[in-house]
């Protein structure tokens, strides 16, 4: 049994504890956010307006984090099926009433705010799958695994149809990793892997044209240097020309001269890599690793199955964000619209991420209140 090594001294720590926060996680996240602001200032062409809007978002997201941190995990568990059902309904609503933006139907206009239900599913799906396994003996049997997979795939497919491959990937990953963490036997896992291999051509068949092009572009970006390959060529140039030490803050020519597309949002990693070099990258990756490992530690220390699985899933989802984004920007993975967490300019994913951190903190701090 892992015991609480809760920090006993100091007023600051006391406040942090009283607010159910986690100092290590909070520190890592705050540091990443701060670096994100520095890079965004450069990527936006030194536009303070952009920083201001991002600041407002971070403020909102932080409030959400605080709120989530106060909610004990067993409350979340009880809400899980309702949250999930509501999320799937919203996805269906988007399908029929949603707004179209940039060729995809993702948004639901609620009058006051525009809302992406798919974003919401990044938390709702792991909650649901964790709930499903919470009371069952583990490792799960095959039928249970199949049922859980169905719970994951229904929203994932709905999101992929929007089409939003990046989010679908994250949602599917956040659910499937729970099946893995729940202890699914390796042979079932192997079987699923084989099935995935068989399903790949089928998936190809269902892909949108632009998604197929992205996959092809990954294999050979130079085949279409001014079209689909442009993003990846320019971002590789940005990263590569940064070298070991980087060109210095505000001196990245690729980004400052607007060669790099989407440089405030999905490709902000390339801006960072160009200006701060491999040294900066190693620092950044270390920080991300720190946050992820802290999340996994929280999962290990969690006191019940639901919290464990949920914490593990949320940490893993954060990792998927980082890996898919850096992999895509550096040309390892196809271009899928996944932002660099805590760095990229944009609202919805920031709120989701911070909500997830709030949940992690809650799981870490509410354990004493839980009845074993």
């Amino acid at each position, binding site marked *: 049994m892992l015991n609480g090594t809760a920090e006993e001294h100091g007023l600051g720590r006391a406040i942090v504890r009283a607010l159910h926060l986690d100092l290590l996680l909070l520190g890592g996240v705050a540091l990443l956010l701060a670096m994100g602001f520095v890079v965004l200032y450069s990527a936006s062409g030194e536009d303070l307006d952009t920083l201001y809007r991002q600041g407002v978002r971070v403020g909102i997201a932080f409030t959400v984090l605080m709120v989530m941190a106060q909610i004990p995990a067993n409350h979340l568990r009880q809400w899980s099926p309702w949250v999930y059902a509501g999320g799937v309904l919203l996805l269906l609503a988007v399908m029929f009433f949603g707004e179209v933006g940039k060729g995809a139907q993702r948004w639901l206009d609620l009058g006051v705010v525009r809302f992406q239900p798919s974003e919401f599913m990044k938390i709702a799906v792991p909650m649901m799958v964790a709930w499903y396994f919470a009371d069952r*003996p583990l490792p799960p049997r095959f039928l249970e695994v199949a049922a859980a997979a169905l719970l994951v795939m229904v929203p994932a497919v709905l999101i992929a149809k929007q089409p939003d491959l990046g989010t679908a990937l994250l949602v599917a990953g956040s659910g499937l990793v729970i099946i893995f963490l729940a202890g699914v036997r390796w042979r079932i896992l192997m079987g699923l892997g084989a099935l995935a291999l068989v399903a790949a051509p089928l998936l190809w068949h269902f892909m949108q044209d632009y998604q197929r092009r992205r996959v092809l572009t990954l294999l050979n970006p130079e085949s279409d240097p001014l079209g689909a390959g442009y993003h990846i060529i320019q971002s590789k140039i940005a*990263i*590569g020309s940064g*070298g070991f030490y980087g060109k210095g803050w505000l001196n990245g*020519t690729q980004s400052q*001269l607007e060669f790099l597309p989407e440089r405030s949002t999905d490709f902000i990693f390339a801006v960072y890599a160009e200006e701060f070099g491999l040294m900066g990258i190693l620092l950044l*990756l270390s920080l991300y*690793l720190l946050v992820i490992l802290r999340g996994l530690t929280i999962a290990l220390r969690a006191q019940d199955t639901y919290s464990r699985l949920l914490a593990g899933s949320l940490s893993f989802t954060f990792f998927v964000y980082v890996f898919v984004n850096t992999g895509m920007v550096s040309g390892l993975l196809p271009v899928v619209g996944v932002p660099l967490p805590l760095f990229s300019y944009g609202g919805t994913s920031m709120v989701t991420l911070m909500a997830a951190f709030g949940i992690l903190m809650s799981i870490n701090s509410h354990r004493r209140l839980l009845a074993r």
Partner: protein
Amino acid sequence: MSSRQPIKNHHQEQRLFLARIITLGVIIVLLFGLVGVRLTQLQVINHSHFSTLSQNNRVRLEALPPPRGLIYDRNGVVLAENRPTYQLEVTLEQVDNLQDTLDRLSALLDLEPAEIDRFRRSLRGKRPFQAVPLKLNLTDEELANFAVNRHLFPGVDVQAGVARHYPHGEALAHVIGYVGRIDERELARIDTRRYAGTTHIGKLGVERYYEDHLHGHVGFQKVEVNAQGRTLRVLEREPPVPGRDLVLSLDVRLQAVAQEALDGMAGAIVAMDPRNGEVLAMVSMPTFDPNLFVHGIPARTFQELRNNRRQPLFNRALSGQYPPGSTLKMLVGLAGLEHGVIRADRMMFAAGYYTLPNDTRRYRDWRRHGHGWVDLDKAITQSSDVYFYDMSFRLGIDRMSEFLGRFGVGEATGIDSTGERRGLLPSREWKRAAQGMPWFPGETLITSIGQGYMLATPMQLASISSTLAMRGQRVRPHLLRGMLGEDGEELHVAEPEFLAPVQVSRAEFWDQVLTPMEHVMHRPNGTAYHSAGRDAPYRIAGKTGTSQVFGLGQDEEYDEASVAKHLRDHALFIGFAPADDPRIAVAVLVENGGSGGRVAAPVARKVMDYFILEMTP
């Protein structure tokens, strides 16, 4: 709550979970490592490769076309200048609906279909965000019209530039020539690097001949651009070297007088300074406005000019080849003196015609009953043909041809302009080569009065006149007086180029042919006395000529209405003044003008009067 599931084994589940979390952690660390390796590959191993790509990405080399050199007359009057112009440009990326924009522009600016066609052609192969010219050379009215409505046309802009302008227009079209858009043939010929950014090139005349000097040297600037191709700042700049400014020997005032003197006629005048070869005036009439060609002449206007029977595009001064007629009699006389065939004081009886021995064919004099007893002086003064028939018969074509050649007959003067023709100096060899025929003695007679095969350009005639004025000293005629230094101030005067002089064994031979030239003007029996020489306050030496058009291959169409005019003789005149201290040598040609004395001589007189009496030497 977990108690609801009795078979749930917490410890086993926790161990399982620990194992899975560790597995996951290892996978995560490995994948992070993969990203790290990938970035090391990009940023360290391939760094120099991407660094180069990045440099090329942001730096673009732009050409800075040099401003074309200006052209001045000898007194500093601008003959060719660069004037600001405005053209309408379209940036396709900023236009919402191209067809609609073009439709509305057409309503506003009178866009021609040809302009729209050209515009659409140049849209292909342009860079992103590159503006493409739609309408060149906007008039002030069009400029104002567009300026008022500009807000209705996003992506359409007025771009300022410079364009060649010829303030004297028609007066100098044939001398200066003009510039026009570089065409494909020229593109193959020129050094495209030197012409980067330049759209126009000298097509004719001085503009073409001195293209190399006028053009200058292209400059370059390295600019930093963004992905849209917008220039952000200049990194490095090598300024262009402007083209050299030319100062011509022409005097626009004299040019205007000459043009006025030929008013309504088709012909040419060349006036030059015999002492140094400077061409003072060169006129070919009718003429055209060279400014039409700078912006691309509308096809219809060009067709009109080209099909005009009076051939305004034809530079008669340099390209027109005419039988020189009697204007070369001094040369033939000099040949006779030099070869001892005649003596100046020896008289002969010149009847109305001449016959060769054993031949009945009559070679007629222009004066029906002949000139009676004539010596060389009278033969030139009254332009006796029979005197020269007789002399040339004894001189022979070979010696005559060789001697005329010394004056440059049949040889281009090499003036610094374009389109000059050589004329034709007939000889035995020439005829055998050109026609495969032997030379007939009768042809010698015809040649001696400047008819038959012989052809000369007005420029050659002026040059011959100049050589006579200088008693054999030959200088190559030229239009360029000098070039301004690169500071635009100092004038580098071109040295006159003297050619092998015409030498005769006795200096008095010159007097024996030049004095009669004065008599042509100033003696009552002179062919130009009544029309031109009579009241001249200074002494002129001159010679008239009237050459038959008939039978000569003028490639003009047969047109019934103009046949009479068409077959009329060409009127010619050569001369210089003042006779004792020549400062100007002139040649005049009036196509189908009739008598050289009555028509061409007064034209020359007007030019000489202005030069001698009005212009300060």
